[in-house]
C-alpha cells in the first residue's frame, strides 16, 4: 500500500466557503504536479452552510489510485496530517452545524502532524486556546488577518495560495514549491499569486507543542438518544421556559433568563463578542429585543446581560445600541472564559471598568463579509501596504473583487 495524506480545512461557513474550496482544490492540483492523485470535498453534514458556523473541507491525496480509494470513502478521516484553521478563533474549538459538543481544533491531528493557523497572534496566544493533546504536534503560524467574505463576492487576498506555500514547507513529502507554482499557473495563471505563495513558505513560523501545553479544559459533549430510544412520533422535548436571575450581591431574584437549547451552544460560531459598559447603559431594551439569538438575560436591576454560551457574535446589539461605546464588539481571542459580564460588574465596578477598557483597547477590528461596494479593494490595499499581499509585480487592484458564482448544495 502506498502513502495516504489527509488534510482538513476548518473554516467559517459561508464567509470562507470559496476560500476553503480554493485551498482544498489547490492542494489536490499541486499534489498532481508532484505525481500523486487526490480528491477534494466538503463534509456533507455541514451543508446547508450558515454564516460563521464552523465547517470543514478535506483534501485526500495518495501515491496511487488504490490507496486513494481506500482513504476516500469516509465521512471524515480518522486522522489527518495537517489541520488548517483559516480563522484563529476556531482554535477555541469547533461545534459544527451537524453535531453535538465541542471538538478541539487539533482533534484529528496525527502525532507529529501540523496545525496551520492564519493569524496575527503569536504562538502563546494560539496555544492557550487549543485544547491539550496527549502527544506533541507542530504549530505553524501564517501571518495574516482572517479572510472573510460572503457567499457571492470573493475577497482575493491570496490567503489560498499562501496556505499552499505553507504546506509545501511543512509537508514536503506531499508537494514542493515548484508543484505549487505549477498548480497556481494552471488554476489562476498569476505571477503575483506565485510570489505570494513562495513568500509565505519563506516567512512561515513553526514550533512544537508539547502535551503539557494548551487549554486543559475538557470540551463539552452530549449523550444523545439512539434512534430506537426516541419518543413516540419522533417528538423532541421542548425547552423549558426560563426563570428569574439572582443578583450576585443582594441575592434578589428577578428579571428573566430564558432556558436555552442545551445541546447546541453556538459560541464557537463567534469571532467577536459584545462587551457591555453597564455604566453607560440607558436600559433602552434594544439589544435584548433585536438579538436574533435571544442571548440577553434580563437582570433583576433591569440591565441586559449577553449570555456568552448563546452569543454567536453577529454584532447586531452593537449596531442597535443608541449609546456610544456602550456595547463594543471585541475580538474573541481576547477572552479566556464565558463569565457573565453583569456579575463581574456587580461584584466589583472599578475592576470591571478597568477590564472593559482593557478589552476595548485590545480590540482588533474584525469584519465579516460585504459592507459596501469597493470595500474589499480598500482592504486589499491595506494588506499590500502591510506587506501581507505581495504586489511587487504590479498593481491590479480593480480585479480583486470578483463575483464568483457559488455552488449549489442540497439540504433539509
Amino acid at each position: 500500500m502506498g502513502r495516504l495524506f489527509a488534510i482538513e480545512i476548518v473554516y467559517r461557513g459561508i464567509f470562507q466557503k470559496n476560500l476553503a474550496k480554493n485551498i482544498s482544490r489547490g492542494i489536490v492540483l499541486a499534489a498532481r504536479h508532484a505525481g500523486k492523485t487526490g480528491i477534494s470535498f466538503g463534509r456533507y453534514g455541514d451543508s446547508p452552510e450558515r454564516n460563521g458556523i464552523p465547517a470543514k473541507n478535506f483534501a485526500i491525496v495518495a501515491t496511487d489510485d488504490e490507496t486513494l480509494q481506500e482513504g476516500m470513502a469516509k465521512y471524515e478521516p480518522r486522522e489527518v496530517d495537517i489541520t488548517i484553521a483559516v480563522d484563529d478563533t476556531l482554535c477555541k474549538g469547533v461545534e459544527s452545524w451537524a453535531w453535538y459538543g465541542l471538538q478541539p481544533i487539533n482533534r484529528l491531528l496525527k502525532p507529529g502532524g501540523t496545525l496551520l493557523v492564519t493569524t496575527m497572534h503569536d504562538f502563546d496566544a494560539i496555544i492557550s486556546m487549543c485544547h491539550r493533546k496527549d502527544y506533541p504536534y507542530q504549530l505553524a503560524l501564517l501571518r495574516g488577518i482572517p479572510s472573510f467574505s460572503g457567499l457571492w463576492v470573493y475577497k482575493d487576498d491570496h490567503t489560498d495560495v499562501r496556505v499552499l506555500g505553507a504546506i509545501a514547507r511543512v509537508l514536503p513529502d506531499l508537494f514542493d514549491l515548484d508543484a505549487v507554482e505549477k498548480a497556481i499557473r494552471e488554476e489562476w495563471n498569476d505571477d503575483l499569486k506565485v510570489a505570494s505563495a513562495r513568500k509565505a513558505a519563506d516567512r512561515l513560523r513553526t514550533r512544537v507543542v508539547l502535551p503539557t501545553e494548551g487549554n486543559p479544559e475538557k470540551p463539552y459533549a452530549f449523550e444523545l438518544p439512539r434512534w430506537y430510544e426516541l419518543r413516540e412520533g419522533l417528538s423532541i422535548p421542548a425547552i423549558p421556559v426560563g426563570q428569574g436571575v439572582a443578583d450576585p450581591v443582594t441575592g434578589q431574584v428577578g428579571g428573566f433568563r430564558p432556558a436555552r437549547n442545551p445541546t447546541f451552544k453556538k459560541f464557537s460560531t463567534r469571532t467577536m463578542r459584545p462587551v457591555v459598559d453597564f455604566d453607560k447603559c440607558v436600559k433602552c431594551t434594544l439589544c435584548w429585543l433585536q438579538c436574533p439569538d435571544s442571548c440577553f438575560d434580563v437582570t433583576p436591576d433591569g440591565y441586559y446581560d449577553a449570555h456568552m454560551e448563546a452569543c454567536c457574535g453577529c454584532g447586531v446589539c452593537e449596531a442597535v445600541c443608541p449609546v456610544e461605546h456602550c456595547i463594543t464588539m471585541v475580538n474573541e481571542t481576547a477572552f479566556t472564559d464565558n463569565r457573565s459580564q453583569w456579575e463581574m460588574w456587580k461584584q466589583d465596578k472599578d475592576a470591571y471598568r478597568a477590564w472593559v477598557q482593557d478589552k476595548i483597547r485590545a480590540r482588533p477590528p474584525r469584519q465579516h463579509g460585504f459592507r459596501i461596494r469597493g470595500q474589499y479593494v480598500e482592504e486589499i490595499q491595506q494588506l499590500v501596504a502591510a506587506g501581507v499581499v505581495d504586489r511587487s509585480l504590479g498593481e491590479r487592484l480593480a480585479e480583486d473583487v470578483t463575483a464568483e458564482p457559488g455552488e449549489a448544495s442540497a439540504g433539509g
Partner: protein
Amino acid sequence: MDAVETALPTQQLEQIKGVKKAPLEEYFTSGHRTCQGCESALVMKLMVKAAGPRTIVLGSTGCMYVANTTYYSTSWVVPWMHTQLGSSGSAGLGTAAALRVLMRKGKIKEEPINVIAFCGDGGGADMGLSAISAALTHPQYNFLILLYDNESYANTDIQLSGLTPYGAHTTFSPPGKMKRLLHTRWKKNVAGMLAAGHPECRYVATVCASYAVDFMNRVRKALSIGGPTFIHSLDPCPKGWDYDPMLSHELGELAVETGVWPLYEVENGVLKLYGRTKAIAEKRARRKPVREYLIRQGRFAHFTDDDIDYFQAKVDEMWEKWLIPGVIPFRKELEQDRPPV
C-alpha cells in the same frame, strides 16, 4: 354542513405599548443553528413572544425548520411541528380544525389556542401559495400564516424564488460576462394579492422585524381578530444577501425607508399604512434613494448605475402610479399618463 358553526373565541392579546412593555419571556430561545445575524430567527422570536405560551407553531421546510430543529435538538419552548415545504396553509387549517374537534369531543379543555403556520418565500409564495389561498377562504377557523421572506430558497443555499428581487445574484442567477443580470423579473406582491383576493380573510399585514414592537402588535392583532389571517415579513438574510451580519437591523430599516418594503395592514377590509411608510406617504418623511439599500448587499455587487436607476424607477412607479402606493398595483388613470379623449 359545518359552514354555519361559529368560530371559537380567540385569545385577546393587548397591543404592546412601547418596548418596555414587551413580555420578558422567550418561547423561541437560543441554540438554533441559523446564521450570525439571521433576521428570520428574530422573526420567530418576536412572533411567539407576541403570541405567548398557549400557541402551536407549524413550520414549513426551510431555514427556520432545518436550522431550528436538527436531530433531537430544538430551540422551541412552545409546541412545534414540522410540515412539508408547500403545506403551511393546509397545516394551519388542519390543526385549527383538529383542535376544534378535540374540544368539541371533550378530549381537551375548551380554550383559545393560537395556531401559527410559518413558511419561507419559496414555500409560501411559490409552491404553497394555492394552499394558503385555499386556507384563507375558511372563515370558521382561527389561525395565522406568517410568511418570512428572505427572498430566496435560503436553506438550500440561495436559489431564486418568486420573491427574489430584480437582478439579484442567486445560485440560479449568477451574473456573467454575456449577461450581467440573469434575473429580470419583478418581485410578486403576495400580501396585496392575498388581501385583494380573499374577502373572508379579516387581517393581512406586512411587517419588518427591525420595528419589533410594531411587528409584535401586528401578530397580536392577527391572532385576536380570528379567522384565517396572513402576515408577510421581509427578513434581511446575511447569507443570501451577502452582507456583514451586523447590518441586519439596518437593512430592514433601509428596506422600509427606501420604500422597497411598504408597511401596511388590511383589517376587515380597511387599509392602513403604518410606521415609516405612513410618514413617507403623508410626506412627513422622505423616501431614501434605493442605492443606499442596494450597495450594502453583495447580491447586487454587479449592478451598474443604470441597474440602480432602473430599480429606483420601478420603486418610484410603485409609489407614484399605483392605485394605493406600494400596495395595490392597479394604475390610477392619471391624467398625465393617459389623457381622456
